[in-house]
């Protein structure tokens, strides 16, 4: 598998949010402003990449070695939780503005299924070595970011429009996501 295919596949064809349904909570929650969306993308990229690398190593050198693959879920999530908390602590110190902007959503990365989902997908894929997994993780993070940023742009614009009362917020966000998913189906079979 070439890296290009992994990248195109993860970003466009099987976009993690729009076609795999992972990470919907932050997608709906942190997408009201472009600036926070960008911050969130950064945080997710960071956590997702490191988490995938660590869990891949864990899977290969511990779980598979001792034949205790069934502990996958629990070890992976532990690793991710610890990572997120680390990022949170470090960010609070290093960049307080970013910390404030991401606010409650940093801990939410723990409960962002995208991170765990990608880690599991990468670790269980037969064709992925460490390098492929890393690329896969980054590409998925970019796919997540792309969806999130496009989406936040649309939501910022919708702020100015006269949306029907009951459609405000989540319903409309979901419909926009639906139409986006519809549009992204055009990429079918590209990779």
């Amino acid at each position, binding site marked *: 598998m070439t890296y290009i295919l992994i990248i195109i596949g993860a970003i466009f064809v099987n976009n993690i949010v729009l076609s795999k349904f992972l990470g919907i909570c932050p997608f709906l929650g942190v997408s009201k402003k*472009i600036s926070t969306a960008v911050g969130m993308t950064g945080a997710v990229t960071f956590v997702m990449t490191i988490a995938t690398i660590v869990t891949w190593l864990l899977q290969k050198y511990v779980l598979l070695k001792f034949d205790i693959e069934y502990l996958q879920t629990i070890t992976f999530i532990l690793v991710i939780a610890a990572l997120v908390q680390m990022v949170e602590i470090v960010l609070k110190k290093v960049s307080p503005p970013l910390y404030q902007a991401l606010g409650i959503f940093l801990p939410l990365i723990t409960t962002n299924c995208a991170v765990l989902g990608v880690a599991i997908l990468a670790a269980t894929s037969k064709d992925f070595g460490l390098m492929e997994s890393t690329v896969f993780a980054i590409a998925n993070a970019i796919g997540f970011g792309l969806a999130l940023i*496009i989406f936040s*742009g649309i939501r910022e614009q919708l702020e100015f429009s006269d949306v029907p009362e009951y*459609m405000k917020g989540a319903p*409309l966000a979901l419909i926009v996501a639906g139409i986006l998913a519809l549009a*992204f*189906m055009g990429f079918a079979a590209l990779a």
Partner: protein
Amino acid sequence: MSKLVISQSPHLHTKPDVKKLMYAVIIALLPSLALSLFFYGVGALVVTAVAVVAAVVFEWLIVKFILKKEPTIWDGSAIITGLLLAFNVPSNLPIWIIIVGALVAIGVGKLSFGGLGQNPFNPALVGRVFLLISFPVQMTSWPTPLVNRGVYIDAITGATPLGVMKEGLKNGEAMSSIMQNIPSHLQMFYGQMGGSLGEISALLLILGGIYLLFKKVISWHIPGSIFITVILISGIFWLMNPEANADPLFHLLTGGIMLGAIYMATDYSTSPMSNSGKIVFGVGIGVLTMVIRLWGAYPEGVSFAILIMNAFVPIINKGFKPKLFGAKK
């Protein structure tokens, strides 16, 4: 003397209102519609009529009974949505599917967002792509022009030139042999080929486009940049290997490029505000269309390309502003 009115300047306003702009678009589309009626017969008539009526009726019902606002059907935008939806489907599409398409276009694509001008995605295309993915069989069987004009659903069908090409290339055929199964460029130019009922005649669509340009309803930026991008990309591939790639003119004349570029990418609500933004938007549509045509699963990608670029419009609007007078360099 009654009470004086006090309001802010300016105290003058232009005549052309929203309605006039919309009706100009409808007028520009009429020649193409007439040609479709000639080529496809009753099918085109039924499909267009159903789409337009359904779009207008849904708009009226939803605005009146669900949104509880003043009905807005006479501004003409729903008519355009219906018309363009019809233009984007084969002329043998069953009535109930068209009605579903109109409901999705108006209900999901437009009124969910608050109606005229608020929708980020082109309603007609939302309806069209929704149908394409829901009913791939019905949406991809194209009646052959000039045959069986009296028949609606059971018209004889064939493939579009793009479909023939994609199929042929997949089987490793050479371009020159594929071209024998495809109408000549001249036929494609005036519109005798398989396809959605309104997209076939480049000639009439361009004429309508010139009318709109002349009336200042649209500007050249979006269609122009789409055409140039498509020509450039297809040209490069064609020059590299003319046996495995179609020529630029073929790409320009087939499929929905003309309809999409002139009438759908230019939709006000869903395109960027600045001229530079419009050009970026057009280039994006051109590139995505060609990517899907060359490598994707679908033979044609204009609809998807426009929808995807619609999604980028708010970001384009942020990044590409008109040049500020006296901007500091």
